[in-house]
């Protein structure tokens, strides 16, 4: 799955590059976001606010809020991979949805490590490459929505979520969080609905919803038995 996740995200970078230029960022600003911020959701939040006429500070805030989950992911990766001191910084930079999802989809520690670095590096290279191509093609391409690339993002997030829904408890958490998010969207600034959903999910997990052996922790399913995302 590592390779397919990397390719899918790289292709999604095409629409980020094009949208970012369309939002009024320069090519260099667009590349700075992909190289240094390197978190799809936060990058889209940033250019989304700018495109909607928002200020720089609100764009930065939306990106920062949406990026808090990367701190949570960082804790997970640190526990899972226990990287040496010198690998912490590169590992931190490569800590994104896709690398964490790929690592936590494995049970063997070696496979977790391999999955994390392969997905992280693969996504980084392709994300930046396709950001550049997208930004260069930007105006010629017109509206990236016409190419269905936003549909690809929807499918990718659902594809990452799907293998984790193996019983009633995670399904309930997913549904509750999705509903909370959608209720919050019109009421609070972009990025905040996702944080509210995170708080709800944490509370549900803390309250011990379902038995501990039921596998709410993401790393219990052996890879071969999850055919939905199990080819690599």
């Amino acid at each position, binding site marked *: 799955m590592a390779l397919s996740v990397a390719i899918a995200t790289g292709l999604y970078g095409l629409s980020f590059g094009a949208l970012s230029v369309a939002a009024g960022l320069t090519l260099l600003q667009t590349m700075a976001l992909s190289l240094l911020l390197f978190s799809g959701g936060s990058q889209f939040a940033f250019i989304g606010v700018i495109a909607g006429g928002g200020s720089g500070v609100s764009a930065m805030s939306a990106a*920062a809020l949406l990026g808090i989950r990367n701190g949570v992911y960082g804790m997970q990766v640190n526990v899972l991979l226990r990287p040496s001191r010198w690998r912490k910084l590169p590992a931190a930079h490569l800590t994104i949805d896709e690398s964490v999802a790929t690592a936590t989809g494995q049970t063997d520690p070696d496979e977790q490590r391999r999955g994390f670095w392969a997905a992280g590096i693969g996504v980084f290279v392709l994300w930046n490459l396709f950001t550049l191509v997208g930004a260069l093609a930007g105006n010629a391409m017109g509206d990236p929505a016409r190419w269905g690339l936003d549909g690809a993002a929807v499918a990718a997030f659902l594809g990452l979520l799907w293998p984790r829904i193996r019983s009633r408890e995670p399904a309930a958490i997913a549904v509750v969080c999705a509903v909370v998010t959608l209720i919050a969207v019109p009421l609070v600034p972009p990025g905040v609905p996702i944080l509210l959903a995170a708080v709800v999910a944490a509370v549900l997990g803390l309250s011990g919803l379902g038995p501990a052996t039921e596998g709410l922790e993401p790393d219990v399913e052996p890879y071969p038995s999850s055919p939905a995302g199990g080819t690599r």
Partner: protein
Amino acid sequence: MSLWGWVLLACAVSIATKFLGFLVPARLLDNPRMLRVAGSLTIGLLAALTATNTFASGQALVVDARVVALVAAAVTLWLRAPFLVVVAVGALAAGLARLLGAA
């Protein structure tokens, strides 16, 4: 501050946030309860991201071609297709829906 300043500040905050997670002591998460919290956080965040990517347009909720992509992806996942096929079907479905006149 210019747009460049906010771009770079957003980048710095992102890197700091990611690295902060690595500085939290491992034993804080290394017990069943915290692992379960982390697990449900992942599920909750992915569900929230799926929801916003499908229905949110800024602060508005809209039903457009992305819903068609969501349904098509779900059917493809139900059929146990590989991840890449799911993503391709999502893009194709949204593209086709727009060709057929969806927003």
